[in-house]
């Protein structure tokens, strides 16, 4: 199923959440900007991170994350970013 599209500073990000046997088995990027330097950041660094974290966070059924303040630049690699971009799964 397709996750939501979230507007971020990197442009719109949409992920596909793959559910197998009632559990999330994979998270793939469907749509993300691929021209600017920022988009390279999110595609090369953040998305692999998001993949692991979305799977982990969904299994914990968490809505949001409280942590020491991250900067805007660190957002793409934060747990919150993982939730914002892939955390909504309607079964």
């Amino acid at each position: 199923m397709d996750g939501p599209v979230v507007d971020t500073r990197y442009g719109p990000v949409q992920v596909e959440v793959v559910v197998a046997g009632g559990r999330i088995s994979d998270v793939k990027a469907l749509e993300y900007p691929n021209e600017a330097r920022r988009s390279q950041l999110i595609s090369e660094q953040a998305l692999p991170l998001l993949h692991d974290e979305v799977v982990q966070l969904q299994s914990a059924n968490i809505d949001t994350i409280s942590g020491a303040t991250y900067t805007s630049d660190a957002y793409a690699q934060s747990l919150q970013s993982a939730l914002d971009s892939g955390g909504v799964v309607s079964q």
Partner: protein
Amino acid sequence: MREVRRAEDVMGTTVSMLAHVETSDAERIEGSMDDAIAWLHEVDDRFTTYRPGSEWLRYCAGQVAAADVHPDVRHVLARVVELGSETRGAFRIDADPSRPPDPAAFVKGWAVQRAADILVGAGASAVCVNGGGDVAAWRLHGAWRVGIQDPFDRSAVRAVVDVDCGAVATSGAYERGGHVFDPRTGGPAEGLASVTVVGPDLGTADAYATAAFALGPDARAWLRTLDGYGAYIVDEQGSAEAIGLAVAC
């Protein structure tokens, strides 16, 4: 029922908003998110210490009289004094001698709390606003599950707290480096890896978390005296303790 989400770079961090809305209300909630984002930028412009010429910096430099500042500046000044007293001196806006006085440890939480209040006031049935790790959350039914980040592993959650109406703020040195100062020594705060404070108001929770982190291990005794605010502490050895707070691990 629909989910509406938005993320905005403001106050040096990213604020993300999530609201549950009836489909017929979606347009109004989207509009309230525009209002909330405008409010956050207004606060950032007024209180920033990172760009010259903000009203806060002009007030600190004596270029604007107290009687002439915006009511929000007067509110923050008054609240900062109260927070100093409530934290037995541990919350200070002038703890870093190399920088101008910075009220951010209260102002960010205060601003994010009001942003959440704007969405609630517009009629959302559930609202969760996360300002760089500080959370204001409200739900008509059920509770949000708020993960507390592991200070030793940014990709992991150390504990989970359920919040139906309230705030969760975390202070730690692991993201921005040693930016919290112990007002008693003037040096970087030591002894704790992170402090999370949970309570009714995010501005207060944010300031309390910063104060507790500054106090280090001595914060435990003070945190036990708080009414309406609980805490989750992880020390530098990795041990965790909940004070006046129910958490799931």
